[in-house]
């Protein structure tokens, strides 16, 4: 068999496929099935703190208990709906703001001469290498009531009363945009850097003004990059915990934070699981979109 000749003995090939595959199935796929199962059980005061779904009664009868109460609660209680709605809104608006800031950055990086391009790119990636938690924490010192921003604005006479930003929704937006900006810039850069410069030259030769050439050529061609960047910001931001927890007020409802509270404070594992399942369902559509885009990108690459 030709392919065997090329890729080595069958066992080597099987091992190379099987190891990462097996790992991800065991530690990534299987856990979700367990989450689904536990979202259908009830909490109880025991170890583990949830009721089993199936039970053998009299040796021959298998009792199956499926509890849809958690999902019913999520459907009825406005608190949870607000949390989902708010998470999607925060993630969506933050993605748009990231796009507005990130696009010009990616554009300028892609248009720079190679040496400067590498430095600019490095500067976008570098904050990503430092603790995310600490970077979010740094914002507290800037935006709190007696923080640096207010001190500066007060001493300049621009405001007379300190601004209340920390523990408001604005602080959450700020934190999300700040933390996820590199995830927008990098795919946009990758996309813009691959663009054929002769297209723009041709447009210029034909008399198109730069702004028109940008709107008619660069922008449409960068749509895959825009979509990828938006998804890379949007999907994790919907489930964000650290940012609303540290920067948002006690009333900043987001699903990630709610799951955390249900799990750690209320010890309601089944309810936390059903929140996770609904959140997953919500993210499937944007995820499939991202996956499709990526596959097309790789196919055109290889």
């Amino acid at each position, binding site marked *: 068999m030709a392919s065997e000749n090329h890729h080595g003995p069958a066992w080597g090939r099987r091992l190379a496929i099987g190891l990462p595959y097996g790992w*991800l199935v065991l530690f990534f796929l299987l856990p979700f099935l*367990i989450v689904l199962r536990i979202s259908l059980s009830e909490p109880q005061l025991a170890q583990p703190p949830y009721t089993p779904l199936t039970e053998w009664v009299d040796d021959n009868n298998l009792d199956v208990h499926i509890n849809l109460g958690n999902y019913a609660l999520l459907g009825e209680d406005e608190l949870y709906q607000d949390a989902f709605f708010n998470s999607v809104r925060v993630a969506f608006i933050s993605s748009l703001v990231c796009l507005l800031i990130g696009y010009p950055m990616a554009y300028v990086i892609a248009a720079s001469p190679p040496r400067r391009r590498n430095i600019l790119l490095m500067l976008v990636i570098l904050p990503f*290498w430092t603790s995310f938690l600490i970077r979010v*924490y*740094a914002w507290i010192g800037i935006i709190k009531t007696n923080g640096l921003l207010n001190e500066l604005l007060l001493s300049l006479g621009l405001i007379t009363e300190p601004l209340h930003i920390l523990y408001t929704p604005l602080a959450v937006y700020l934190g999300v945009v700040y933390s996820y900006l590199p995830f927008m810039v990098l795919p946009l850069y990758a996309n813009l850097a691959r663009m054929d410069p002769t297209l723009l030259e041709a447009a210029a030769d034909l008399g198109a003004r730069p702004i028109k050439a940008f709107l008619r050529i660069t922008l449409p061609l960068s749509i895959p990059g825009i979509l990828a960047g938006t998804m*890379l910001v949007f999907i994790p931001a919907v489930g964000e915990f650290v940012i609303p927890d540290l920067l948002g007020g006690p009333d900043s409802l987001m699903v990630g934070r709610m799951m955390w509270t249900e799990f750690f404070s209320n010890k309601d594992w089944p309810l936390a699981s059903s929140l996770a399942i609904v959140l997953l369902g919500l993210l499937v559509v944007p995820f499939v979109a*991202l*996956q499709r885009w990526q596959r097309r990108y790789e196919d055109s690459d290889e």
Partner: protein
Amino acid sequence: MSRGRIGLVSLVAFGYAFLYLPVILLVIFSFNDSKLVTVWGGFSTRWYAEMFQNESLLQAAWRSLQIASINATFAVILGTLAAHVMSRYRRFRGRNGLDLLLTAPLVMPDVIIGLALLLLFVNMEQIIGWPAGRGITTITLAHITFSLAYAAIVIRARMGQLDLSLEEAAMDLGARPFTVFVRITLPLLAPALVSAWLLSFTLSLDDLVIASFVSGPGSTTLPMWIYSSVRMGVSPQVNALATLMLALVTLGVLVAGVLMHKKNA
């Protein structure tokens, strides 16, 4: 410069300022003698001294460094295999499935991964008795799971750029596939392996949410320590710690960059 260009450049400058402002302030205030974030009380390194005497902080840091390095090593091994499989085996059953499993951890919210893995570990312990309890082992297993996806991306990107004819030439000369992989592919991949290792290392060192779910008593990691000290009120020691980590990471990235530059040149 045209007006449009000035506007564009200032927008970009704003973007970079936004990314770096908090980091720079953090570094400056780590040398502040005053305990207050907004008041400059003169230059001092007292927070660094206090940090190195803080037993709970040092223990958490040591624990996190151990987890991060074991995690990075396994993530690079599994990530290399995954990248090799995805870029060299054009067709095998379940290829799309593997592709999906390699992408999903990159965007999956931490709270979901954390909860899902905790439930897995609880069930595994019930059924096969391993892992017994939760602690460093479960945190490391959890970290490998998402780090391997990042490692695979970095390594796969590099594999896509490699000259296939080198591998083919070696095979035509009769080298066995394993020998080709070890003698040709791996050395060419070295820069990507280093980046992937460093990336996996920092991802692990940075994770609060997943570790919180799958940790047990007595396995407080560095991010968990930072989180609780931030929640309890600002401690300037956190600034000092952040600055130290920043310095180490920058140094690591620079050294790796220089080495890679030499290798490519």
